[in-house]
């Protein structure tokens, strides 16, 4: 996917601390890692938008060591559960967290490499699970509400998706994307992968859009592009982004959920008027990262559309009877075919030896239609999940999580993207439920509304009538 040795003197990344790293240094750091990790093993990488996190990740991939990318701020109980399930041979962690990794007798795991603020720790877990030859990388699909379900991505998946993205966004070595998303998040990672493939310079910052330091770094380092989930664009609007002086900015991309048509139009108009490019994209971790893009020249004309399949990919729509939809403006489940469709899921350590289970075909679970010009529009979802600030949250998992923590509490979860509504039958526990959900998922409580009801509407078989609940949300 990468060929760092063809441009060793170029700067691969600049961090908001002022430090930077060249492609040549990334290559030599991969050698350091290789001498510490002699064979193909599993490493848990606790990611952040820093040089250490990046250098570890690129070195593991380069040496065919399999990284599982996780956020460095991940809930400890969830991390412990994942550790127990997958028994990683190593951890790659920020040095300040190093002392929290200990064995049963409270002895710290030995550090084999300490560089760029990160440490490579050797764990005592044996025996390691065997890894399939094609397995390159592991990512989670959602926040911490779910089971420890991982997506297994292959070297072919990464190379194919990276090449498609470089092609459709016309990424060159002159680009300087600034990070606005976590590295362990598939869309954030694909921005890094595609720009490293083009020999560009990634601007790494842990600062958020709402912080002054983010914008000083943006301006000082002349960022040329950023990506964002729908919420990012809402925040930008609140920041009165259209009036900001950002002469270096050339490209904006949006993925991770559906942007409201109003915001889509406003940002597309802004881009057209100021000579910039605005790309709407659509993807899933199960397709490595991205499946479609709306060419920037059509961002206004095709407002609300996810566009067309990325180069090398192909979409079709399948109706309820399993037939291919050929008529325009007719809905069906969106099915994608391409070399970026990942190998499958892992639910336990034994699954890491599995090969491809999908045959390059992914039923997305999204309901879509296609217009006469061949552009796709997402109109709904087959499964019960919503996206909160770009993170997939399964509503049934959320219910189970609440019920197991609050025994005897009746609850039902519904809502739309960025707004989950939890219906409960005991008003006194509303605050506790909200706090619990926020702390468990690491998602800001602003996303959760807890509504007490006399009773949860159910049918005779005892199944929750979600349609009725949805009406009660809309009626508010």
């Amino acid at each position, binding site marked *: 996917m990468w060929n760092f040795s063809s441009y060793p003197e170029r700067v691969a990344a600049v961090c908001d601390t002022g430090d930077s790293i060249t492609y040549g240094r990334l290559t030599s750091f991969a050698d350091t890692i290789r001498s510490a990790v002699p064979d193909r093993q599993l490493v848990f990488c606790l990611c952040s938008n820093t040089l250490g996190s990046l250098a570890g990740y690129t070195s593991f991939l380069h040496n065919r060591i399999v990284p599982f990318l996780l956020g460095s701020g991940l809930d400890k109980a969830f991390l412990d559960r994942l550790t127990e399930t997958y028994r990683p041979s190593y951890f790659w962690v920020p040095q300040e967290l190093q002392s929290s990794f200990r064995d049963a007798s409270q002895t710290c795991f030995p550090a084999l490499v300490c560089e760029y603020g990160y440490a490579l720790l050797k764990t005592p877990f044996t025996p390691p699970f065997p890894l399939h030859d094609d397995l390159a990388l592991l990512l989670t699909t959602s926040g911490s509400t779910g089971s420890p379900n991982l997506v297994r991505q292959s070297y072919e998946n990464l190379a194919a998706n990276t090449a498609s993205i470089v092609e459709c966004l016309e990424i060159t070595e002159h680009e300087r994307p600034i990070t606005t998303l976590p590295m362990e998040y598939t869309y954030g990672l694909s921005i890094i992968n595609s720009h490293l493939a083009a020999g560009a310079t990634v601007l790494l910052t842990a600062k*958020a859009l709402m912080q002054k330091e983010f914008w000083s770094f943006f301006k000082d380092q002349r960022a040329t592009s950023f990506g964002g989930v729908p919420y990012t664009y809402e925040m930008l609007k609140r920041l009165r982004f259209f009036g900001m002086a950002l002469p270096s900015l050339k490209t904006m991309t949006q993925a991770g959920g559906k942007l409201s048509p109003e915001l889509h139009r406003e940002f597309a108009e802004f881009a057209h008027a100021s000579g910039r490019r605005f790309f709407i994209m659509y993807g899933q971790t199960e397709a490595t990262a991205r499946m479609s893009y709306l060419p920037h020249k059509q961002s206004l004309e095709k407002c609300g559309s996810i566009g067309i399949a990325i180069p090398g990919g192909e979409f079709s729509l399948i109706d309820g009877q399993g037939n291919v939809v050929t008529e325009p403006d007719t809905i069906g489940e969106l099915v994608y075919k391409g070399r970026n469709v990942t190998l499958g899921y892992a639910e336990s350590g034994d699954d890491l030896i599995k090969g491809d289970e999908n045959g390059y075909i992914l039923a997305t679970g999204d309901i879509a239609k296609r217009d006469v010009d061949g552009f796709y529009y997402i109109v709904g979802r087959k499964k019960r999940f919503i996206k909160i600030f770009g993170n997939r949250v399964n509503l049934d998992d959320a219910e189970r999580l609440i019920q197991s923590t609050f025994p005897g509490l009746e609850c039902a979860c519904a809502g739309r993207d960025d707004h989950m509504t939890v219906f409960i039958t005991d008003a006194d526990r509303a605050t506790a439920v909200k706090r619990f959900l926020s702390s468990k998922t690491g998602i800001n409580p602003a996303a959760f509304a807890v509504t007490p009801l006399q009773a949860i509407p159910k049918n005779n078989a005892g199944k929750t009538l979600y349609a009725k609940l949805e009406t009660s949300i809309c009626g508010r």
Partner: protein
Amino acid sequence: MTNLEKYAKAFVDSFDVDTAALPTCSYQSVAVWDSIGHMALMALLEETFGIMLETEDIIDFSSFEKGKEILRKYSVEL
């Protein structure tokens, strides 16, 4: 309610924090004060005081104390 009380209430409502903890409250000192919490707080303050904050002030609004200074620029007496 005085303006200062209204100001404090916006923090308490946005971040679910104790009034006693407010003087030391700053961006990311509580988990809830992240970008999303920040946006909610800004919206609530704009609504409470009937003002429209400038970009520079939104991104400079890094703590409970700093916010007081900023609101004074909008003729909000605290």
